């Protein structure tokens, strides 16, 4: 279509720029054209294309195409297209521009051939996506957006330090396998881990996603974490620690998801759980496992996007998002309810739906490599997914007790977007070769054999049975309005408290020093010109105490000088 050397993020960035200055149909056309044309163009690109550039003192490789990046390139274009269609009815320039920039940055990140380029897109992703949270334009989203951005920036900074260290140690900034032999490797792993939602670092996810707009969340759930999975697959395949990290990620969110009331937060927890499967796959590091991890990332975008879109539609039409306030919506939103059920079936990995074909790969790889206990834990996680995402989401939103809400189907563009995702879910599930042919590593695999199908069906039916039984007996955790405290307590309360303690201690010490200093000088030349409006930290200092510090400094210098002559 155009020169193969034009990096893939360019069309999306251009569209973002144009969307800033256009309105109405023209903007709609541009926003649709960018992912479609960009995606079609990408289909014609062969692996092996590479663009090099000399900037500062680095040999950058801003565009490198191989099969792994190409797969994510396709994925992000599909995701951008679905997201754009879903958001077409929104009249908010900021959201459109931020969403396109965000998608463009994610595409840029997966095609980055060196760590510096990766870092730039990594930060651009964080910043542009924060605007999708602020797009809610309410009190809650401002604070959440800042906390979200903090995590993103920390991840970027870790990456920066890691890459500088790595560059110094190895003399190369190329982004290939990094490994955890050096501290630099660990820092980079941690940077990727923040964005991949590693345990204890996952709060931006559960905090940020539910605070965004109905359309913004769809974009949010599609790019950042998947780009992180890509980065892990590229930099740290076969790092055994990741298997256990991934196992934790797959298991712990289940408990939170089951008791959570805000359905979009349930999906956020479920996101971490799905990421767990991918991280485990990367951790195993065999061709099958890596294929499984990236295939699952691909599928997760589709079914998680579909569920998020269904919830977004519910939120848009009813204005509510708590399981306790919803129910019975299937009467007024039958199409949405059906599409949501397709998403639920996919995420629960029903055979013939796409979750099945990729999750089986990770599970098989676990068995082949002899991680039986991990395999059991992942089995538990699979059952958990079915509970909180496969049953709970559609059940409490569309069925359960009738909440009395009567509304209509969402705008047509939303239905189209959900339809595309649903068709893709079923198509990949029924004809897995569609996806398998794109996978980066060569490995023959067939998910539809007797063992897999039977194991999965048993698992699903017994979980369904458990849900039904628990619900009938009234033992299933009811949907309550509650705040569930996660590890975020540590970030939002614990650390600030510790910080205040340290500040108070420092202030006490410097205060007593200051008093001693003033007493020493007997009379401060000037009384403190304190401004009561300002906080103690920011107060003015009397000239006397300034002079005292000068004296102390000079004394230290003099004494140090004298001591050094003695020694020498």
């Amino acid at each position: 279509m155009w020169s193969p050397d034009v990096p893939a993020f360019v069309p999306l960035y251009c569209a973002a720029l144009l969307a800033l200055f256009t309105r109405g149909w023209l903007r709609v056309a541009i926003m649709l054209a960018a992912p479609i044309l960009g995606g079609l163009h990408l289909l014609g690109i062969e692996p092996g294309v590479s663009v090099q550039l000399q900037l500062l003192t680095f040999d950058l490789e801003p565009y490198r195409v191989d099969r792994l990046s190409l797969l994510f390139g396709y994925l992000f274009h599909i995701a951008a297209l679905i997201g754009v269609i879903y958001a077409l009815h929104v009249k908010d320039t900021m959201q459109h521009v931020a969403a396109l920039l965000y998608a463009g940055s994610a595409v840029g990140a997966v095609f980055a051939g060196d760590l510096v380029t990766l870092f730039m897109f990594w930060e651009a992703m964080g910043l542009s996506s924060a605007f999708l949270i602020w797009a809610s334009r309410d009190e809650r989203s401002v604070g959440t957006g800042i906390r979200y951005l903090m995590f993103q920036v920390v991840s970027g900074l870790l990456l920066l330090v890691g890459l500088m260290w790595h560059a110094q140690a190895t003399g190369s900034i190329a982004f290939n396998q990094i490994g955890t032999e050096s501290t630099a490797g660990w820092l980079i792993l941690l940077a990727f881990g923040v964005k991949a939602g590693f345990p204890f670092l996952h709060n931006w996810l559960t905090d940020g996603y539910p605070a965004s707009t109905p359309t913004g969340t769809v974009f949010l759930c599609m790019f950042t974490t998947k780009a992180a999975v890509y980065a892990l697959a590229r930099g740290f395949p076969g790092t055994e620690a990741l298997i256990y990290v991934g196992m934790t990620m797959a298991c712990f969110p289940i408990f939170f998801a089951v008791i959570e009331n805000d359905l979009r937060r349930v999906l956020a927890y479920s996101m971490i759980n799905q990421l767990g499967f991918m991280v485990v796959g990367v951790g195993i590091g065999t061709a099958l496992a890596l294929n499984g991890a990236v295939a699952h990332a691909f599928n997760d975008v589709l079914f998680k996007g579909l569920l998020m879109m269904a919830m977004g539609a519910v939120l848009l039409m009813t204005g509510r998002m708590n399981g306790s306030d919803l129910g019975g919506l299937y009467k007024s939103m039958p199409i949405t309810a059906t599409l949501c059920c397709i998403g639920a079936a996919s995420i629960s990995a029903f055979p013939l739906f796409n979750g099945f074909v990729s999750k089986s790969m990770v599970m098989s790889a676990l068995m082949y490599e002899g991680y039986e206990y991990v395999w059991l834990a992942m089995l538990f996680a699979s059952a958990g997914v079915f509970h909180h995402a496969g049953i709970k989401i559609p059940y409490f939103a569309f069925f359960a007790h009738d909440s009395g809400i009567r509304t209509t189907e969402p705008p047509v563009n939303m239905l189209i977007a959900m339809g595309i995702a649903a068709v893709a879910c079923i198509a990949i599930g029924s004809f897995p070769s569609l996806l398998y042919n794109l996978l980066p590593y060569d490995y023959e695999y067939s998910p539809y054999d007797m063992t897999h199908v039977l194991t999965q069906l048993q698992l699903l039916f017994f979980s369904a049975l458990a849900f039904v039984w628990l619900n009938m007996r009234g033992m299933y955790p009811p949907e309550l309005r509650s705040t569930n405290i996660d590890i975020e307590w540590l970030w939002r309360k614990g650390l600030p408290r510790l910080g205040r303690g340290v500040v108070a201690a420092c202030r006490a010490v410097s205060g007593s020093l200051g008093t001693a200093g003033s007493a020493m000088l007997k009379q401060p030349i000037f009384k403190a010109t304190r401004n009561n409006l300002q906080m103690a930290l920011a107060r003015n200092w009397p000239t006397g105490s300034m002079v005292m510090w000068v004296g102390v400094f000079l004394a230290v210098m003099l004494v140090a000088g004298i001591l050094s002559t003695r020694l020498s």
Partner: protein
Amino acid sequence: MEHFPALMIVLPLLAAPVAAALPNGRLPWLLTTAVSWGVLAMACFLLATVLGTGPISYEMGGWAPPWGIEFRIDTLNAFVLLIVAGIGAVVTPFAGPSARAEIPQRLQSLFYCLFLLTYTGLLGITATGDIFNMFVFLEISSLSSYALIALGRDRRALTAAYQYLIMGTIGATFFLIGVGLLYSVTGTLNIADLAERLPALEEARVVHTAFAFLVAGIALKLALFPLHLWLPNAYTYAPSAVSAFIAATATKVAVYVMIRVLFTVFGVEFSLGEMPLQPILVVLSVIGVVVTSLMAINQLDAKRLLAYSSVAQLGYMAIGIAFGTTLGLTAAITHVFNHALMKGALFLALGAVAYRIGSTRIHDMAGLAKVMPWTILAFAIGGLSLVGVPLTAGFISKWYLISAALEQGWWWLAVIMLITSLFAVMYVWKVIEVAWFRDLPESRADVREAPLSLLVPVWVLVAANVWFGIDTRFSAGVAARAAEALLGVAP
């Protein structure tokens, strides 16, 4: 041409009394602007010459050094001269409308006279090759800047200026005592001559004492933590154009003096090896960077917030100096340049805000992005540069600093720098959030965008921030050459 080193000091010096004699109005401003641009042209010429043909030595009045006063321009001070002249040439056009609004009509010509004197002093400190002459210019720039700060609208400007006066005088006195002690043992005041004679006297306690006094004096002018306490008030209450000019140049010149004294006069082995200055500088700077960044977060006035952030940034420069390596020094000198650009842009943007709403309190800036989008956008980009976001000048400085820290194996320092960058995000964000996301109070609905005469200088500096964030051949390149020359790595 060969008289440029002297001419660029003499021109503003002579223009100062002329400006004072001119009637209040536009004339003194036009004169100042013309002078500052002339000086900028000379500074560019000098830097080009120095880069091309090596250091220039100019004998004042035809007396050969070391007896006469020598002006010695090498890569380092040609670079600093360019920074001072460049910021001066951008700030003076801004000062026109800004000072008309902030300074009483009857003091206008006096204001420009003082401004030119400060300018002279800063250029003189940088250009001279004589350490006593350095002290003289230091006093010229300090005395005139005390008066400039006292011209601020707020009455607290008087206390601020008084505190600055006391502290500045103590600093200058220490400097003078140090110079006197050096003179008593070496019998010379010429910097190059001192550098030759000192190595033989390194054992003498007088030299050690002189070193302590010189460093303490300069550290005070440089606002090294905890000697920074005069700075926030001085920057906060000074007139807007003065804040921008002083913040971008005065402390940078002090950093230059520090580098000159440590590396040229005493030499790196003595300064950082024999004397235990490295741990002192590193510890104080690190504490300073953390504490003042935290203080910046707690400020209610945007100007004061930037002032505290300046102290933190100066801490970065001091850390770069303390490494004593080529990379560290390159980082420090690059940051001198980049920080002048970003603080200049930020203070000028606040000057434009003050011009329209008469206040720089963060609370008063609520919703201002709706009516003054270009000003707030400029502040935001300057803020990003301050944080060190890639593609801005600040990133380049941080990059070099962190590289220098890692080169020494001080990874904990790199971590601290990154954490303090996060603090920078917080304090910059604090202003942006209020200006961008809060609602505009009705009383300010008729506020308009700042006039072009203010916006152009602001955006020139903002553009420079972005330019030097991408193309570092000039900024980091010259800084690296200056650092190599100082440490004697390259000819």
